[in-house]
């Protein structure tokens, strides 16, 4: 057993230092202002949940859950996402309130990282859930709110890619006649983003040539609204047509929301093996190696808490958004008032004035500062009221 060094933290855990805390707080404030402006109410749930309830139904893989035992021996999990706990609340304490429910959250979620030490195992998500609205208007509302929130936070260069799991599944079950094993294998290739494997698997299927071609053409269904036409001509059954119509309707509504320039479509998009049930989406920004935000419609989650309702929502990774915004670290806006024994009283009066006007002010006795010059440089503004400092404003 290696002895731990004093600075070490558990794998994937990070400290939030003041400058980063300020950046996160700013982003959090802007996102929640936008979300509240759209009539969503913020709520919170405990960090710990039962594995049997939230742990079982969450979209996070079991091996990524942090598990622990309570005093009675029950297995608990640190919440791996906010969607499952909110579904639990919607299906219990809130089940008699007026639907559709518009809920929002902001808080840390936990996902264990096994392979690499560098990736965070705890990160903050801001998100929304629209519960009990199964229309395209609901899908559009959530995506438009996501776009508006990111813009409010100051991000302008990003892309939201929208897919529809209903299309892919209906397409496969039509062409492959409900051969579930093959369908799962093909879905797995798409989920793993392995198009080479997908093509090889399709070529090895003993089905008619035209069906193979159709399956291969699925890979080209991405881009702007022009893909509606090709996905419609590839569509062979009612469910596929329905999905294409959903997407068209969604796009029409997104245009009315005025956010269409951020939207791309990709009918191969599979964010998760079996969680989403309709429209789903992922958001990306330049200079971020990884996903910025994601979401979609999940109609099977609430029924697992005995509430028959459809829901849709998004989640934004706050830390990654801060990284994508790439603002300078120099965001310390504190004012420092340096005093000595004589000027203490006056300094305190002055600080009170400033504070009344909303400034962040610190009052510091000069005797406790090792290096007055560099102390002043740390702060946005200082006033030296000591005798040596001339008792004057800087």
């Amino acid at each position, binding site marked *: 057993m290696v002895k731990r060094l004093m600075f070490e933290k558990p794998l994937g855990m990070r400290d939030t230092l003041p400058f980063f805390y300020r950046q996160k707080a700013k982003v959090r404030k802007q996102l929640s202002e936008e979300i509240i402006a759209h009539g969503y109410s913020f709520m919170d749930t405990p960090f710990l949940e039962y594995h049997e309830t939230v742990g079982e139904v969450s979209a996070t893989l079991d091996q990524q859950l942090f598990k622990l035992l309570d005093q009675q021996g029950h297995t608990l999990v640190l919440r791996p996402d906010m969607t499952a706990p909110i579904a639990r609340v919607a299906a219990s304490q809130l089940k008699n309130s007026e639907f559709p429910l518009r809920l929002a959250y902001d808080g840390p979620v936990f996902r264990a990282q096994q392979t690499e030490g560098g990736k965070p195992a705890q990160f903050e998500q801001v998100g929304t859930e629209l519960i009990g609205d199964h229309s395209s208007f609901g899908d559009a509302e959530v995506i438009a709110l996501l776009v508006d929130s990111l813009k409010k936070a100051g991000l302008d260069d990003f892309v939201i890619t929208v897919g529809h799991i209903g299309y892919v599944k209906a397409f496969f079950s039509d062409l492959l006649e409900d051969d579930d094993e093959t369908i799962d294998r093909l879905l797995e290739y798409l989920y793993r983003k392995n198009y*080479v494997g997908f093509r090889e698997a399709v070529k090895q299927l003993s089905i008619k040539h035209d069906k193979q071609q159709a399956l291969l053409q699925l890979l080209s269904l991405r881009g702007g609204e022009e893909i509606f036409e090709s996905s419609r001509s590839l569509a062979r059954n009612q469910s596929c047509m329905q999905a294409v119509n959903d997407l068209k309707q969604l796009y029409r509504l997104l245009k009315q929301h005025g956010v269409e320039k951020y939207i*791309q479509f990709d009918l191969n998009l599979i964010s998760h093996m079996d969680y989403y049930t309709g429209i789903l989406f992922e958001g990306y*920004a330049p200079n971020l*190696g990884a*996903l910025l935000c994601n979401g979609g419609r999940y109609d099977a989650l609430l029924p697992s808490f005995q509430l028959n309702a459809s829901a849709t929502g998004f989640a934004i990774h706050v830390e990654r958004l801060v990284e994508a915004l790439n603002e300078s670290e120099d965001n310390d806006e504190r004012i420092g008032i340096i005093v000595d024994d004589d000027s203490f009283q006056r300094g305190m009066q002055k600080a009170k004035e400033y504070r009344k006007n909303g400034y962040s002010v610190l009052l510091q006795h000069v005797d406790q500062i090792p290096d007055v010059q560099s102390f002043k440089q740390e702060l946005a503004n200082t006033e030296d009221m000591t005798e040596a400092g001339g008792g004057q404003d800087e």
Partner: protein
Amino acid sequence: MSNKLTIAMPKGRIYEEAAELMKQAGYDLGADQDESRKLILEFPEQNIQIMMAKPMDVVTYVEYGAADIGIAGKDVLLEQDRDVYEVLDLKISPCYVAVAGLPDQPMNRIAPKIATKYPKVASDYFREQGEQIEIIPLNGSIELAPLIGLADRIVDIVSTGRTLRENGLVEYEKIADITSRLIVNPVSYRLKSEEIDRMVNKLSEVMEGEEV
């Protein structure tokens, strides 16, 4: 102005073969870069930047977004299981991963030892076979392990089989075919889709042309 593409490529033979493919697809990346010790090569007229990397590291550069595109062996992709798009089989440097060992040597029944530089590929394969094994990780000269009694079997890349033969080893089972793949970072795949799609389409036309 289109976006600049950064491509991570392995040095050596794969680079040459890949550069040849790229040339047929209309991207001139110069043929002989082997002499140079430069790690970053610029091709401003193609709006392309090439990063020279170790084959095992190409996938890492692409996953983290340091490169938009990479050319990586399927062996590395199988071993590392990283979050990248695998968009095209370039069919260059074909070989395969196989299980090999001394002839007529049954595996130890209790805890067979497998020497390999592909611990994940090896343990996944034997798990599928219902065998619980012990992995002995090595970085090179894997063929030594059965000869000196360090391992029952090895799992390694075979291209011609010459190294196996010359060391008196035989191949037992083939695990997977390996070729080089074109991989894409998930974010670049969305944000630079125009440039990347163009390159992928041109390359796949070249590939299809060769198949005929």
